[in-house]
């Protein structure tokens, strides 16, 4: 009923089932998970726990143990994990209540029900995401031509000029490069030269994606970096390669060029 839960999980450093079950969990990096639900599902499925009867005490203990192993814990990023920790603790304590809460029909309310529903729903989307990733994607696995030639016999009308379309195209470019494409921005300045050395320095470690060189925020820095790359490229100090439509550009140190 709930197939292929763990097949897509590349988890580094996770121990075999036995050792997970008995406390003393190995250090597991939160980086391996897409959030607390992902981590809980991993623990549940890995240990073949019954999803509709989760041993909540064990699970909570394991969860907290993993969290505690993350030192230092970056509160800003760990927020979602901490919230789940408190949820688990609450469920655990509600399980211990001598008199269970009843719903409108007088049925016992399982304090775990909401969490289980959430886990199952998430598990579905996680599987759907994995399936989407598997689908042959245009531009990655399959390709259609960007330029479509017909027979020479065809008189293809020339595309109509359209100023609005032209301007919105330019807006797109502006938005991508951060609002400035005019000459003055491209004037040679001291900082372009600084940026050139910065780029060359970074490239000593091998090729980089263009975006990686733009990792300092600020329009000016980005434009200057960009200029520096242009200049280096022009001087043939670097190589610039790009792939098909809408994809990344790689900057290569010259000697690594193909």
């Amino acid at each position, binding site marked *: 009923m709930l197939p292929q839960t763990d097949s897509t999980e590349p988890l580094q450093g996770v121990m075999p089932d036995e050792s997970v079950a008995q406390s003393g969990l190995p250090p597991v990096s939160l980086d391996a998970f897409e959030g607390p*639900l992902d981590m809980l599902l991993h623990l549940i499925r890995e240990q073949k726990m019954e999803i509709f009867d989760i041993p909540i005490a064990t699970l909570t203990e394991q969860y907290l143990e993993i969290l505690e192993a993350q030192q230092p814990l970056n509160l800003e990023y760990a*927020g979602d994990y901490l919230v789940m920790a408190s949820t688990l603790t609450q469920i655990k304590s509600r399980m211990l209540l001598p008199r269970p809460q009843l719903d409108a029909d007088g049925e016992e309310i399982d304090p775990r029900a909401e969490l289980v529903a959430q886990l*199952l729903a998430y598990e*579905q*989307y996680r599987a*759907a995401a994995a399936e989407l990733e598997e689908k042959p994607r245009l531009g990655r696995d*399959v390709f259609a031509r960007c330029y479509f030639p017909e027979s020479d016999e065809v008189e293809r009308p020339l595309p109509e000029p359209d100023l609005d379309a032209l301007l919105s195209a330019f807006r797109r470019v502006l938005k991508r490069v951060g609002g400035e494409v005019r000459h003055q921005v491209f004037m040679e300045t001291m900082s372009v030269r600084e940026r050139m050395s910065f780029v060359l320095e970074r490239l000593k470690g091998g090729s980089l994606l263009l975006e990686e060189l733009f990792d300092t925020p600020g329009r000016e820095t980005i434009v200057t970096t960009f200029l520096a790359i242009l200049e280096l490229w022009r001087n043939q100090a670097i190589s610039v390669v790009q792939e098909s439509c809408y994809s990344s550009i790689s900057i290569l140190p010259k000697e690594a060029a193909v």
Partner: protein
Amino acid sequence: MNPDTNKLSATLEALIIASDEPLSLARLRDLSDASSADIRAALAELEAHYQGRGITLQEVAGGWQFRSAPEYAAQVQQLWQTRPPRLSRSMLETLAIIAYRQPVTRAEIEMLRGLKVSSSIIGGLQERSWIKVLGRKEVPGRPHLYGTGRQFLIDFGLSSLSDLPEIAQLMDQEELESADQEDQLLLHADEAQDETDEYPGDADAAGEAGLGPVNTNFD
């Protein structure tokens, strides 16, 4: 194969290879002067003809397009020297939720993922034209409602949204309904947060206040 079908298939081939986007059945009918039934038959025949070749005829976004076959991805990728960037799991899960649950707000996505959804993820999906804002939800904060765009179908090779892999089968209907109900209940609690959630930079505030999606379960 009779000569007429043959002729029609060839016409369709010519039209489809020349077009700059997938051609719908309606458009093929206008252009070829054939009946829908004949066109469907010819397309099916073409589809079969291109089985196992380097080119496939594919139905995407309600139209037909020739594409290179996935088996030759490795060779074809060499045309561009670099590989397309991988999609992060965050992006894929967010996209999957939007595809299946549209129209959906960011808070609802966060609810389902049990995790904050950063603006760069939404921005990245919008930039690729895979998702778009369909409108606003009429609840306090009037958060954006997201859905998938046509480019999503084109890029993922889906003929329509109903072509999405079925996921409901992973759960009993009953479970699904109960999960849905839970979501509905929780969504109300969450909605008030949409406004702040829409903007980058507020993630911290929400985190500090302990207002992550998950703990609203127990309010």
